[in-house]
């Protein structure tokens, strides 16, 4: 049950993030939507590894306790770090664009680039 709920929430968040990336014109909000999509994928992976009444895979007591699957969690850990690094790098590119065009509006930046090419 927990798994199904996690996957449904993850898919809804994925949809919201995808729509945000397509329709919002502000570059920073686009990046935040990308983060939302990333988070939804992590949620989906972790909930696929979940079990009913499962506990975290840290061995403290009995051998055969109901531990959740540790493999998706280890993979999601890599995804979190890479998400952080890529978000930082993407924000640097947004900073460079803002420095040049004085706007975070993607359509306005596109318009300015077109005008520069015509000149």
């Amino acid at each position, binding site marked *: 049950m927990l*798994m*199904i709920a996690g*996957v*449904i929430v993850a*898919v*809804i968040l*994925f*949809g919201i993030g*995808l*729509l945000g990336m*397509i*329709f919002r014109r502000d570059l920073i909000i686009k990046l935040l939507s990308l983060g939302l999509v990333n988070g939804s994928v992590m949620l989906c992976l972790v909930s*696929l*590894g979940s079990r009913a009444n499962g506990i*975290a*895979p*840290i*061995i*403290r007591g009995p*051998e055969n306790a109901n*531990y*959740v*699957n*540790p*493999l998706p*969690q*280890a*993979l999601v*850990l*890599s995804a*979190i*770090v*890479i998400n*952080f*690094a*890529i978000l*930082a*790098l993407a*924000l*640097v*590119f947004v*900073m*460079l664009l803002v*420095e040049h065009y004085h706007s975070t509006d993607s359509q306005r930046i596109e318009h300015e680039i077109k005008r520069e090419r015509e000149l």
Partner: protein
Amino acid sequence: MRYRRIGLIVYATILVCCFCGLVIAFFSYQEPTRELGAIYLSRAPSETGAANIVSAIYLNYRLYDTLFEILIFSVAVLGVRFYLSDYREKEIVEKIPESQIVRTSADLFFPPIFLIGIYLTLSGHLSPGGGFSGGVVAGTALLLCAVALGANTVGKRFHEPTLRWLEWGVLLVVLSLPLLPIVVGRLPFTALLPPGTMGKVISGGSIPIDNLLIGIRVFIGTWVIIHYFMRHRGEV
């Protein structure tokens, strides 16, 4: 033109909604009978000596993944450094007068947050934590300091060339540590140290060493990102 845009928006919304609905409607997942996670759970405590199975997986069984992950992190930090150090210094934004609340809370909370970061880094093989989360927590403590005192004041306390040497030296050690078993005549990526008894502070083979090195690397990387972002957008 305007109607065309509205039509496109409606069309894309319907497409995304259909996709999400189809995924939810036809979602089915059967737990495999011979689960890989169960194999890790039964074998990892005796083979690696780590109580935290997640860190046993990403620092022992799948160390190769983690090495490239730390490499990607380093390349991203290098990118931030490269694109922002060449960047013209902004005209100095007027500094916001120091707030007593922020200053006092920074004084109060900096030591505990930093200590929690070190604890998380060193106990990654026993409890939730590890190099990545511990490094980021310790970096966040520095962010609090930079908010209270200004990024340049905090930045002056670090010797920049030493920081750079440490950053890349630690990366080199992290990348070459798995090759060390060759010296003793074993295959690379095999265990260098004995696993020890599970649950003790000194156990888990080379997992604590890896955690410590990754923690230092992530801490410096986080600080570099924070420092460069603050320096080029004016003081907080």
